[in-house]
């Protein structure tokens, strides 16, 4: 079954109108829109930052895709709602000032965004939330593909969301120091990116998702070799973060070494569901809404993630 991306929207540190953030920033914080034009201000007041980011990009995606109510809402988040989790934890662990707030607890759970989106749409649709570290988004995409292939529904709203909080930045930095993370690390990031996916033909086709299980990831290497043999204009979006974990990319260096490549985390920072941002970026590049200087306009984008001791992933998008 052929699947297409009919609409996308993203909130990230990457600003396609006003240029790109500087390389090697310490952290990548989202440039947030004026939510009042997207979400009812009465609702907005009660919403945490990650909920605002998630709901706003979900609403905009559906608008772009011209879908009123999708038949499934699938979200991915590696770390969930960190601001509220942190707030509740800090208060709970301070015996002198134990003023815990039920709202923080309610909004701390990973499916908050999925539930809020369904409530906003007043929809009784399928709703699921995946949280598998750096592969959360790919697994949510897999669920999307499976649902559409099963044929019981026709459109899916899919999103990946993670937030960077002061506490997360502090603790992760401490952890990186403890684990001796290397110098070149691009920095922590955050973002919300949503996609509307269906069988309805559009200019961006979802060609393939591979989650490689093999120790040598030969299925992904073979896919790359076969693809490049066709001689199509192709851009690689690599999930390198500049740190120690990039070792895992060496396996495919012999094929990808000379190909046009963008290390996209230079623009959004490192976070578990950054692959959702990459998929949004790939779609924007294929539609020529985002143009990278010195990179020929591609017909194909291959989004590649490699991790030590974890499955590698490949998402292939194309335009006709």
């Amino acid at each position, binding site marked *: 079954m052929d699947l297409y991306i009919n609409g996308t929207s993203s909130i990230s540190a990457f600003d396609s109108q006003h240029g790109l953030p500087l390389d090697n920033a310490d952290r990548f914080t989202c440039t947030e829109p004026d939510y009042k034009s997207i979400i009812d201000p009465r609702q907005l007041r009660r919403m945490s930052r990650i909920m605002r980011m998630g709901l706003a990009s979900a609403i905009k995606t559906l608008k772009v895709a011209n879908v009123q109510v999708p038949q499934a809402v699938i979200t991915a988040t*590696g770390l969930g709602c960190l601001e509220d989790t942190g707030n509740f*934890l800090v208060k709970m662990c301070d015996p002198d000032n134990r003023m815990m707030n039920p709202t923080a*607890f309610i909004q701390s759970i990973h499916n908050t965004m999925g539930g809020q989106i369904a409530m906003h749409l007043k929809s009784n649709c399928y*709703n699921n*939330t995946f949280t598998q570290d750096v592969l959360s988004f790919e697994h949510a995409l897999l669920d999307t593909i499976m649902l559409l292939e099963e044929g019981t529904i026709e459109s899916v709203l899919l999103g990946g969301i993670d937030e960077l909080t002061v506490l997360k930045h502090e603790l992760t930095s401490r952890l990186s120091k403890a684990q001796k993370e290397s110098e070149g690390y691009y920095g922590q990031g955050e973002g919300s990116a949503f996609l509307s996916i269906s069988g309805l033909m559009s200019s961006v086709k979802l060609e393939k998702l591979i989650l490689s299980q093999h120790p040598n990831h030969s299925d992904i290497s073979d896919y790359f070799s076969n693809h490049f043999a066709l001689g199509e204009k192709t851009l690689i979006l690599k999930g390198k973060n500049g740190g120690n974990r990039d070792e895992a990319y060496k396996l495919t260096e012999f094929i990808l070494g000379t190909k046009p490549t963008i290390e996209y985390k230079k623009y959004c920072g490192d976070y578990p569901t950054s692959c959702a941002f990459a998929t949004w970026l790939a779609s924007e590049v294929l539609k020529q809404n985002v143009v990278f200087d010195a990179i020929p306009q591609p017909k194909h984008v291959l989004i590649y993630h490699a991790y030590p001791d974890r499955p590698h992933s490949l998402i292939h998008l194309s335009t006709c």
Partner: protein
Amino acid sequence: MKVFVAGMGVFTALGDNCAGNLSSLLGKRHGILASSRDIDTLMGDFPIAKIAYTNNELAAKAGISPSWPRTALLGVIAAQEAVASSGLDFTKYRSGFISGTTVGGMDSTENFFYSYSKNKSAGHISRIINHECGKISHLIAENIQATNFVTTLNTACSSAANAIAFAARMIKSGRLDIAVAGGTDAITAFTLNGFNTLLLLDDELNRPFDARRKGLNLGEGAGYLVLVSEEIARQNNCQILAELSGYANASDSFHQTALSDEGNGPYLAMECAIKMAGLSASVVGYINLHGTATPNNDLSEGNAILRLFPVKIPAISSTKSFTGHTLGASGGVEAVYSVLALINQTTLPNLRFEIPMPGTELFPETEARKIDLQNVLSNSFGFGGNCCSLLFSKV
């Protein structure tokens, strides 16, 4: 393609395996024996269904490192039982581990925060490395060698049920041969205090579906099924415990922490699961209720049942009156209980029920009663309106 249950494992305050849990259920011995103060000395006194083992004891039992978060320790013991009971050699097949959890490594994170809140540079930072829900699944999957696909779902209290449904779809679509699916959650100070701020905890033993119910008791545990395709079952001459004949996910779409009074999400989840199996509601013999004993959940679930079964209400009971609410694990624990009910052709009791909810006239089973069971429904509903029902059929 059919998906069968070829093995299962469960660990709750009732016992550390299927036989122990069943014996407590049939003998009406509940596990809500500890106090919230055993977890958090600053809290009020609320009954909880805590598993009596310490983390060190759990680690020794499972043969793994005591540095694992409690959620992973509980999960690996139930998963090991599930794998062993299936008799399958996982390394010969594409085997996956699909798990639901809501707290992940929170107990270990809390330990760090108790030090950190006093002094920002204090605390062992390594204690937070397994905080993420996904890390729990990764640890367990490696231990049971089900590593061809590992993922985690967090849809609050329906997490494990959604994990089981997703695993079945992975098998049906030919992506996996075998999946260990269910969920695990430990009791933590975070969840205890969270439910307490929401005024959802009962300071006495919970009373699901009773007119005088006041709230839930928290519990902890893990429950996993080994799901296999028809072909794998045949090749290995597997013992088939049940068929997972239907499942459905629906949003209630009413409120972040409350279900609609009429139970739209619960109704749709149950109805679609039965439809998927190609059956009519009248063939459901027993429903293992979500039945948290909060005023809202039980009324909503009760109303949905009254609408879906207008002629004859099946036998119903909430085993949370034994195990407390095991949150993200409950769908896994109760899937195991549902299959146990089916195998043993028995209903499971609902403790402490005396007076039906006004206007519903729903009478849960108060004794384990031998009945002819062909199909058992297991309900799980969560915050965010995430509803999921599973249907198990006799093979």
